[in-house]
């Protein structure tokens, strides 16, 4: 992708009429993310959290090697569906982003876009050494070292790569966090949006997308 597609240009309708488009304005929402306040009614909030924790819809985006251990989870051996966990093909339907291992800069850009397209409340689960401190690619020029500088992470699972059982334990913990109302990653992202953006832009050199992909 180049920067061109974000620049203002004139296109022609099938009838031949010129139309001026400004992609960043016309195609994307310009609003910045907002903090979603918890309801002041405790019982309602508890119910919401309980409901959220009971159905984790995971985005089917395997960003790194850890993705391979999601197939056993989707299939009969470990069958995560019985725990209310299922995989969705599109970010609009998903509320858990499992970052399965290392992220190259090129993927990180797509991950950020996808994450921003997900509906709140949304959670990030980071797998493996790579997302914590670079893992075995700690000295690579093309992979990030720590994910929490670019996206808010709710829970980490250690391992290289984590086994399906560890992933299930991770989901378990995530459920607990959500039930306790501590799954605030997406609000943190909204609050510290400028800091996250600055970090992201530091390593994504040719920034050719809107600041917030919603």
């Amino acid at each position, binding site marked *: 992708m180049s920067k061109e597609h974000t620049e203002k240009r004139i296109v022609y309708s099938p009838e031949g009429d010129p139309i001026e488009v400004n992609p960043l304005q016309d195609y994307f929402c310009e609003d910045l993310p907002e903090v979603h306040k918890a309801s002041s009614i405790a019982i309602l909030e508890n119910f919401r959290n309980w409901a959220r924790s009971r159905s984790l819809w995971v985005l089917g985006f395997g960003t790194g090697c850890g993705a391979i251990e999601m197939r056993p989870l989707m299939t009969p051996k470990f069958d995560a569906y019985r725990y209310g966990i299922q995989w969705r093909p599109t970010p609009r339907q998903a509320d858990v982003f499992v970052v399965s291992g290392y992220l190259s800069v090129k993927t990180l850009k797509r991950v950020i876009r996808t994450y921003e397209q997900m509906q709140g409340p949304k959670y990030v689960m980071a797998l493996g050494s790579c997302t914590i401190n670079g893992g075995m690619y700690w000295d690579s*020029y093309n992979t990030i070292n720590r994910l929490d500088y670019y996206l808010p992470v709710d829970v980490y699972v250690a391992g290289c790569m984590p086994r399906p059982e560890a992933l299930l334990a991770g989901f378990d913990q995530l459920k607990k966090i959500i039930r306790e109302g501590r799954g605030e990653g997406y609000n943190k992202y909204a609050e510290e949006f400028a800091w996250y953006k600055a970090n992201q832009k530091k390593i994504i050199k040719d920034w050719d997308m809107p600041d917030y992909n919603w």
Partner: protein
Amino acid sequence: MKEIIDRLQELYPIGDFKQQNKSLALITVDKDKAVDFITRLKNEEGFLHLSIITAVDWLEKNKFQLSYLINNPTTKNSFVVRVMIDRENAEMFSIHHLWEQAATYQRELKEMFGIDFPGSPGVDKPFILEGWHEIPPYRRDFDTKNYSEETYFPREGRTKNVPAEYMKQKLYPDE
């Protein structure tokens, strides 16, 4: 394998023949004759299969070594055809007309080593990297660890102790 080389020796300046193992031999050919030579191996000697094209950076000698690994599916033998080219303004003749996948290899070499292959389709398009502004990363003078540490925020909380130095500090600091 030796007999092929002996046969072609008169036509092409072939150097450094080495039989690496039963089915693999290494040879060096001049840059100008290389494409000719590879074409001949492909068309007349049955070396139909191109396994890889890759490069080695000999920074000390200020040279790039290009290695073409070609294989004869009938005799099951392979040649590594090595071509030494200058490191400054590195350029090599393209062989995309011989094998379709060569263009991809050449595109990668252009991106990762900065070796140009004029005429190779799409050679200037980014292949793997995106928004890369440093020197090509596979060059030996690119320090990946440095780059990573400066760019990607390594996590704090790490300390370093060398046993011998630590023991000196603890047991005999004055000596």
